[in-house]
């Protein structure tokens, strides 16, 4: 489905404004649009590009509706797939109203945009949340006596450099039956450890979804298959060691998401990148981002062992290797290892 998202055709867009809830127990109501925003080809392409870049890219996650969730969104989405004209507006208001109601005072106000469209005839519903800057006021316009938001507000907000927060959930009609997931979610806060909790609020509390896969299993798979690739395909012991160290460094880094494409781009030689990502794809490691959860490989990533033909082993953590161990390839095929440190202990 990911590749087909480039065929998305956006038919209808409606924008509502949700408020920052400054006073506890005194909810400020959202400002609803009574009619849809009008879209021309330019804005249609603009929105499409944003959707393809996020949902169709490698930073989105497959999600399933959680049957036990209290969120009304799964039900609304289901209803929207069999909507009639007036329902679209009403249901979109319910979506915005729900988010407005559950937001805490910590969450800034913003725009909730609901999109209806299709991908090669398959209906899709998109729910976008864009946070606006504190104090920025968005003016509603009136068409035929009905209030609405100019779509340019949305464009400006997306383009504004300071708007780093963009969240989108996209759901496909009969997605579960055909692809094994109900939709895809992209949230740039997910790759930020400190914002993880906020991101999960959008995914679980608001959208009522869960990831289709277990991050800890995918993280382990990524780690093990990467090591397997190095072992099978990299002959040069120096490069092999370097790659393993990079892998350890990458996976133990504080980032909250990992990705084989990014790892390749950052750490592998150009001639290995394509083969590496292909190998991982063949071994069913997700090609896009994975939520980093190292709980199943904690022990493995805490140390690295270099084992030589003559039975000598060097054991250390990734940092120690990077700082104190240097390897050199000799002409006869052997590898020279040099450890610079103070001898602390000898065990027999």
């Amino acid at each position: 489905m990911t590749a087909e998202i480039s065929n998305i055709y956006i038919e209808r867009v409606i924008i509502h404004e949700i408020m920052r809830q400054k006073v506890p127990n005194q909810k400020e109501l959202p400002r609803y649009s009574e009619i849809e925003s009008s879209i021309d080809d330019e804005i249609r392409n603009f929105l499409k590009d944003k959707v393809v870049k996020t949902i169709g890219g490698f930073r989105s996650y497959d999600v399933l509706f959680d049957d036990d969730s209290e969120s009304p969104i799964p039900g609304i989405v289901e209803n929207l797939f069999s909507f009639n004209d007036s329902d679209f507006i009403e249901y979109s208001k319910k979506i915005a109203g729900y988010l407005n109601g559950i937001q805490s005072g910590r969450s800034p106000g913003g725009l909730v945009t609901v999109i209806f469209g299709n991908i090669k005839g398959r209906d899709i519903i998109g729910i976008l949340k864009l946070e606006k800057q504190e104090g920025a006021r968005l003016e509603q316009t009136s068409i035929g006596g009905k209030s609405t938001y100019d779509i340019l507000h949305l464009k400006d907000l997306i383009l504004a450099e300071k708007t780093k927060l963009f969240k989108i959930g996209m759901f496909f009609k009969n997605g579960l039956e055909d692809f094994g997931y109900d939709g895809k979610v992209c949230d740039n806060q997910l790759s930020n450890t400190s914002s993880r909790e906020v991101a999960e609020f959008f995914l679980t509390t608001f959208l009522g979804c869960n990831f289709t896969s277990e991050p800890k299993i995918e993280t382990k798979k990524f780690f093990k298959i990467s090591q397997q690739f190095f072992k099978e395909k990299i002959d040069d012991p120096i490069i092999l060691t370097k790659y393993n160290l990079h892998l350890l460094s990458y996976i133990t880094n504080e980032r909250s998401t990992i990705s084989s494409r990014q790892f390749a781009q950052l750490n592998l030689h150009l001639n290995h990148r394509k083969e590496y990502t292909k190998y991982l794809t063949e071994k069913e490691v997700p090609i896009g981002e994975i939520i980093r959860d190292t709980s199943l490989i904690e022990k493995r990533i805490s140390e690295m062992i270099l084992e030589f033909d003559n039975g000598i082993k060097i054991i250390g953590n990734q940092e120690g290797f990077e700082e104190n161990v240097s390897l050199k390839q000799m002409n006869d095929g052997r590898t020279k290892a040099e450890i610079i440190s103070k001898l602390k202990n000898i065990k027999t």
Partner: protein
Amino acid sequence: MTLQQILEQWDEQKPFYEKFTKYIALTLDEISQNQGILVRILSRTKDEVSIAKNLYKKGVTAQNYLDMIDKSGARVICRFKEDTLVIANCIRKEFEILKEEDKSDILELNEIGYKSLHFDIRLREENTPEEIFREIGHISGEIQVRTLCEDVWAEINHDLGYKPLTDLSPESARQIYCLGGIFEIADDCFSNINRNIIESSILDEYYALRILESPFIKLVKKEYDRELSYLFLKILLPILGINNPSEFKKIIQDFIDTNNEKIKGILIEREINVNYFPYLTQPELFLIFLLIEKDEFTLIEQWEKKFPIDDLEKLSIWWGHPLSDILYVE
């Protein structure tokens, strides 16, 4: 009939001829684009003065007016001799041919002169929308097909006003014949060069462009900047990692065949971006899309040396394979 009466009749008929001229020009344009051949099409409907002057030359009679087949005319000017043959075949299929004449057939082996393919045509009912055929199906006109060299020779010769050539002084006649010979040789040379590129055993930018050009004309139907193409191809071509021209041809053809609808969709959708996004009107666009799928890492590495990386991101999004996650990693 007097000239006045003839011209009054022409005044009534002219709007239909104008429609006819426009229709055949559009059809010829479509025909050549569908063949992936770059041509220049000229067309015109005779004006009153031209009708009158023609009748003065031939005699002001109703029959001469009726016999004047080129009241509506179009000319297809091709780059290469071999292209004229392809276009001629298409004309035979598309239109009803009332008369066909290859002017070079009239020339003796040792004679140089006007060379062009002439067709007197009418619309073919089965190839024409019903409404249009009802309106202009009875009209006939003339189509000329020639190469650029033949056109230059014919135009200059026409402007010099020597007709027939035998009326020339021996010295001028010799010069005209010499020029005719030069243009004929030039046509042959251009064809040979074209053939050498197409049959090349080396995969270079010239060959690649000739392969990319044909589907580009079919799909994009626009002129492009060759210098920019060579600049792009110099960088993009090595990424494919192949040296064999026929392998390149096959890869490109397979890619375009498989993705024809997708490419068409992108071109239609992004029509509004054409003026400020040059890639859309360049044949190497197909190669960029292919490389986004085939070797994104090397493409990024090479691209950022010469071109704006944001452009590649945009193209990758349009292609539905966003590179955003690896374009800006730190």
